[in-house]
């Protein structure tokens, strides 16, 4: 049965006579070009890469669960030196009036106390040392108290104001003799069992053997914190948890950046302020000389998820702003491709108009336009773009408007080549018979140029455009890489790679710059392959 059908088919084919047109499969010129193009394996590879890139950039962005400007955060355990505690075992000295008790006298007093003497003299002045308690000595001269030596430290509760000698002296006197009240000046104070000194019900100062000092200059430790810390130390604990709403911490990651000279690294995002976290765990470490403790704060801080390595949630990790790399790549591809296309459209439109006019009219118009083309050929475009980019930096142009300017500038600088190509083609086409025919038919000049000449230039034009798409994308990427093109918050492959200027990123975070670079390379390569394939397909005679 099947065989029969085939035989019938064969018969039908054989029915046509040899010169019957139906025997020949007729292809339109367009189909021929397509056929030749798809036979070229390299060109097809290029085309599939391009299709992938378009899907990746335009559809990928829609599928991606994250958005272009979504920041990610992570909780990070920070462990840093927070405070130091010293148990005071040495005598401290305080003078009654400024200058009444110099450092030399100080040393003499120390000597006298340690040797158990009660008198010493220095520079013809006699001093007496009067022990009040094991830990408190008064130094008198002519019956007047000039200074004290003490071990318990009196500090004001607010931490800022300094206490008067009289107050300290009286407080220490009362404290060492286990009295619960004393008076200084006109006021009377009470001392509670923890060493707090109260004026009425208000705590104004406290006495303690331990000195707690914050390691960071901008942190004031509260009395409450210190007290609990000391209790913990005295109990020999190694860990201590404390909750305090008033603690203000700012997170900053110390990362040394090593940059090569002039390349701008854009960093418009403010460092995130670490979320205040009231409860923190502190590690207490006793240092070698036994009187010191170092308090390390272990705090969970909530900050940007910068440079995290590829994982299930972020397939290509995150960048320096804590944004998902893969999503940025998709949106970056969108920007790079759109900029490429718009620039080439501007270039081509200008080139066709100028080249078309020039080639068709010839004479002085041609001369004028060609000199203009020469001038544009001569303008060094890279320096020009760099200067304009730097100027836009200085003028703080909005990133969106900046992108528009970038496209206009690139398009305006690039039309000369296309104009030259169009003109050359038109000059030769103009002399052909079909143009004489259009003239004889009385077709208007505009129609003659744009309906009859330009379509004939199309093949070369398409090839040229495809090739220059790759070039424009590289130029844009280079500019963005230098920090002078597309700016944050917009992503472009160039400004994603920009981060490689940081040697630390170059060395440690391959996922920041390799994927973007590979995408860029593949896209440009694909445009060139397709352009090459198109050239061969359009003009088989030129195939080489």
């Amino acid at each position, binding site marked *: 049965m099947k065989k029969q059908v085939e035989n019938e088919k064969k018969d039908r084919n054989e029915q046509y006579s040899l010169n019957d047109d139906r025997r020949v499969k007729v292809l339109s010129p367009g189909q021929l070009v397509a056929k030749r193009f798809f036979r070229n394996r*390299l060109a097809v590879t290029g085309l599939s890469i391009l299709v992938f890139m378009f899907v990746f950039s335009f559809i990928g962005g829609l599928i991606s669960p994250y958005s272009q400007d979504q920041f990610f955060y992570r909780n990070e355990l920070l462990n840093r030196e927070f405070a130091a505690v010293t148990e005071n075992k040495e005598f401290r000295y305080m003078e009654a009036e400024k200058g009444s008790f110099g450092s030399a006298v100080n040393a003499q007093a120390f000597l006298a106390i340690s040797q158990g003497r009660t008198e010493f003299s220095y520079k013809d002045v006699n001093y007496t040392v009067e022990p009040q308690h094991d830990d408190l000595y008064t130094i008198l001269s002519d019956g007047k108290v000039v200074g004290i030596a003490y071990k318990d430290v009196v500090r004001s509760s607010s931490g800022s104001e300094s206490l008067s000698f009289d107050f300290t002296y009286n407080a220490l006197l009362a404290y060492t003799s286990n009295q619960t009240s004393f008076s200084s000046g006109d006021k009377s104070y009470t001392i509670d069992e923890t060493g707090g000194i109260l004026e009425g019900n208000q705590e104004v100062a406290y006495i303690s053997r331990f000195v707690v000092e914050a390691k960071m200059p901008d942190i004031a430790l509260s009395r409450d914190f210190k007290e609990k810390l000391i209790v913990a130390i005295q109990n020999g604990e190694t860990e201590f948890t404390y909750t305090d709403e008033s603690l203000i911490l700012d997170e900053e990651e110390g990362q040394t950046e090593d940059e090569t000279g002039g390349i701008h690294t854009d960093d418009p995002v403010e460092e995130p302020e670490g979320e205040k976290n009231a409860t923190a765990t502190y590690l207490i470490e006793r240092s070698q000389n036994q009187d010191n403790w170092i308090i390390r704060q272990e705090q969970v801080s909530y900050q940007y998820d910068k440079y995290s390595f590829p994982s299930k949630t972020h397939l290509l990790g995150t960048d320096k702003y804590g944004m998902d790399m893969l999503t940025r790549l998709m949106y970056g591809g969108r920007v790079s491709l759109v900029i490429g296309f718009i620039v080439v459209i501007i270039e081509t439109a200008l080139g066709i108009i100028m080249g078309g006019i020039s080639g068709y009219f010839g004479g002085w118009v041609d001369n004028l336009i060609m000199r203009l083309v020469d001038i544009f050929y001569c*303008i*060094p475009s890279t*320096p020009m773009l760099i200067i304009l980019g730097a100027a836009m930096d200085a003028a703080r142009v909005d990133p969106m408007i900046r992108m528009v300017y970038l496209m206009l500038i690139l398009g305006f600088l690039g039309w000369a080549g296309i104009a030259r190509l169009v003109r050359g083609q038109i000059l030769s086409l103009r002399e052909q018979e079909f143009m004489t025919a259009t003239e004889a038919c009385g077709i208007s000049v505009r129609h003659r140029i744009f309906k009859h000449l330009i379509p004939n230039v199309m093949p070369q034009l398409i090839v040229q455009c495809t090739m220059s798409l790759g070039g424009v994308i590289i130029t844009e990427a280079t500019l963005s890489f230098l920090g002078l093109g597309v700016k944050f918050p917009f992503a472009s492959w160039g400004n994603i790679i920009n981060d490689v200027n940081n040697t630390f990123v170059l060395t440690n975070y391959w996922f920041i710059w390799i994927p973007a670079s590979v995408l*860029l390379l593949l896209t*440009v*390569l694909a445009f060139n392959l397709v352009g090459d394939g198109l050239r061969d397909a359009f003009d088989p005679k030129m195939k080489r």
Partner: protein
Amino acid sequence: MWKYILKRVVISIVILFFVGFIIYTMMRLLPTSYVENIARQKSMQPNSKSYEEWLDQLNETYHLDRGILPGYLSWLGEAVQLKFGDSWFYTDPVLQVFSEHIWLSFIMGVVSFFFELIIAIPLGIIAATRQYSKTDYTISVIALAGISLPTFFFASLLKLLFSVRLNVMPLFGLISKDYNQMTSFNQFLDKAWHLVLPIVTLVVISVGSLMRFVRTNMLEELNADYVRTARAKGLSERKVIYHHAFRNTLIPLVTIIGGSLPGLFSGALITETLYALPGIGYTSFQAMIAGDIPFSMFYMVFLAVLTLLGNLIADILYAVVDPRVRIS
């Protein structure tokens, strides 16, 4: 011939005039405050003139006090006498800065151009003689990849591989830390060592287009009638290719080589910047970023001159090398 050259030179000068004018206009329209900054600094110095006086004086020196066209004409008047003024960014005369940095760029340019030639010509010929073979495809794809390769990507890869992973090459700069303690021969070696990666970058980036150029022209010659005649005569394939076809390929090749000679002075802006080499490209990059009008003006006009010179040389060489071409 001489008449033709003269005509071209005159046209080039006219073009240069307009190119300079466009560049000047752009530089003047930039929102740069460099002059104000300098004036403020100078007026801060003890016993100095007031800020306004300094500003007026500086504006007069740089012809910023007049309109764009008169300003350009006075700039041009001085430029013709090779007076380009002082660079704002480097605070030295422009020509002095230029002569300090140009030679590094020139040496890099010459060395990389030499390597490009000795790589591109043989590979281009091989690709053309074995058209559509695997070799041809490989060479073509490599050439295209070289053209498509962004400079900064390739440079970063080289740095990662040779400077970071293998740690045999310097990351950037021209001299090592202990440069001053070296003997002069070692100093030379040190500089040469620092130039290896940049030159490799330059060669790989630009060898592709030259390779394709050689291949295209070689193919054209191989398809010519005289090659068929030569083969029909029974000449060896070697003789056909190198004696007949390649000699004719040399015509466009010599033209394009001649045309790119002036370009050796232009400096590789991106590559030098990436490797922080003090060539003319990096030097002018910094000046341009800082809005240094005298230096940028000079550098851009210099580049325009080089382009025009390259075109002129290429056209003249074309006529000189190929006796079939007569220019009038």
